[in-house]
């Protein structure tokens, strides 16, 4: 195994896109390739994340069209699918192939046009990532999986549900605060901004003007924050989003010739788990604990060494549980840590300084690569107002399915 570095990253503005999956990916890919001081002809292979191309566009085998679009139609181009972790899984494999010496320079990333599906169709598609024979027939949805997790967590750690829901709301408030500082985020607005926008709209239309005392009252208002799956309300959920992200990986010798700031892939991990019910108490996800351990061991670090982590906050409770499984906080202490501000930029560890899935959005094939984009920019010190001061080690955490796939990647400054 030899050292591997990220030499360039790119992503589209996340949100609602009229572009095709391939068009979005090409935008991100060319940004990454140009930033690497390379041309497409220098790329030896593509590792490509996409989950629902068949449903969104009636398009299977998308990876070959992606390389054709950037002028290298004959290089190997392979799709990686690990539900919402697809982008990370693609990057991890790309890393392994470069580390092994088989390739020197590769492109990895993903794309997803979730909004080409309407909400019932997207909900049905996402539910395909649960066991379709033994759990799908119950009508389980992704919010449902994490709603059950919130109930498990509340019961296990004896945190009354109203208290836990306030702590969960603070995850959303923090991530929207960070997202406002991210020009690529789907939602660049704080929860307070969203409240004021609703007040302004009601005033303009001559409708009854809402009078929420604070954000918590806004969260409790089921008229604006409807229940999706008890106890998760709308603002506990990340949005459906279109977008793409890509990065170029190179062997360390090539990387040092291309950039002064190579970001080293210090450690990777990936683990699987079966059906949700087979995992039993999933407040402590075995696949995530084991995957993170692989990454920490390879990187030769411990959780307290991590300056920032882009983790899988598909739902507010998901962020809390991920923080614990990754070892940043004791089990059962995560929700309190959020309430104490320990996960803000400038806190004990910056969790989702980008705004996370919650504010940046979640185009599932792209998310893992998007998380790496943020960590690379943070380590290079290019994040402006949301910069984590002096960040030298960053980590990503991506969850696919019902924790069926977990992938972790640790990056560190290579200069």
């Amino acid at each position, binding site marked *: 195994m030899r050292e591997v570095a990220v030499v360039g990253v790119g992503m589209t503005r996340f949100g609602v896109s009229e572009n095709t999956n391939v068009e979005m990916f090409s935008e991100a890919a060319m940004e990454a390739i140009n930033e690497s001081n390379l041309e497409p002809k220098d790329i030896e292979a593509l590792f490509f994340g996409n989950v629902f191309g068949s449903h969104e566009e009636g398009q299977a085998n998308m990876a070959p069209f992606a390389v054709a679009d950037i002028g290298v139609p004959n290089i190997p181009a392979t799709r990686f699918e690990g539900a919402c972790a697809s982008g990370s899984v693609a990057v991890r494999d790309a890393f392994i192939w470069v580390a092994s010496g088989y390739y020197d320079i590769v492109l990895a990333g993903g794309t997803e046009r979730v909004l080409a599906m309407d909400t*019932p169709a997207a909900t049905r598609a996402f539910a395909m990532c649960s066991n379709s024979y*033994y759990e799908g027939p119950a009508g389980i949805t992704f919010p449902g999986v994490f709603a059950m997790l919130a*109930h498990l967590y509340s019961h296990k750690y004896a945190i009354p549900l109203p208290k836990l829901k306030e702590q969960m709301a603070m995850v959303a408030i923090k991530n929207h605060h960070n997202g406002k500082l991210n020009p690529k985020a789907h939602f660049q607005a704080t929860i307070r901004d969203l409240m004021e926008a609703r007040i302004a709209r009601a005033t303009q239309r001559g409708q009854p003007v809402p009078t929420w005392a604070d954000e918590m009252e806004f969260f409790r208002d089921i008229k604006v924050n409807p229940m999706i799956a008890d106890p998760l309300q709308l603002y506990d959920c990340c949005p459906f989003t279109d977008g793409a992200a890509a990065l170029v990986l190179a062997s360390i010798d090539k990387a040092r010739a291309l950039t002064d700031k190579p970001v080293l892939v210090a450690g990777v991990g990936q683990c699987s788990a079966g059906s949700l*019910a087979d995992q039993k108490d999933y407040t402590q996800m075995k696949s995530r604990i084991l995957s993170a351990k692989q990454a920490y061991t390879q990187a030769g670090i411990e959780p307290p060494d991590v300056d920032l982590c882009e983790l899988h906050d598909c739902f507010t409770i998901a962020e809390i549980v991920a923080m614990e499984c990754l070892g940043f906080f004791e089990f059962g202490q995560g929700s309190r840590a959020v309430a104490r501000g320990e996960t803000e930029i400038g806190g004990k560890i910056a969790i989702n300084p980008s705004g996370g899935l919650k504010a940046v959005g979640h185009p599932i094939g792209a998310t893992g690569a998007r998380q790496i984009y943020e960590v690379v920019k943070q380590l290079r010190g290019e994040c402006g107002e949301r910069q984590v001061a002096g960040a030298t080690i960053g980590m990503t955490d991506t969850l696919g399915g019902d924790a069926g796939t977990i992938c972790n990647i640790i990056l560190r400054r290579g200069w």
Partner: protein
Amino acid sequence: MEYKLTHKAYTAALRENRLLGLKCNACGGYTVPPKKVCIECAGEDLDIVELRGQGEIRTFTVIRVASEGFQAPYIVGIIELDEGPWLMGNIIGVNCDEATMDMIGRRVKLGHAVIPGDKFSAGERVATTFSL
């Protein structure tokens, strides 16, 4: 090697409200729903057994936004069976607006519901149900 307890055989029993599983002759563990090998020890020496079909609610949710083909609201829960495995299903006979945290720990009994196939599923499906 032949698959001991197939999905087809498992759901045929479920349609009669009978819960089949696999009991491991190496470790004594139960595997439900079925797998090729024991979920506890990966042992291959397994017998098909009928479980009691009873257990306790470990967690639940009320689905308010359903996926295509389902009519919200309805309750999904995960039950710990008396024999040890956890199993997902619909909790029925409970008013969705009265489904609160005190459901956790309640005893339930297994049943089933037939769910029509949709354009993605491999035919008709059978959901596990649980009633208080």
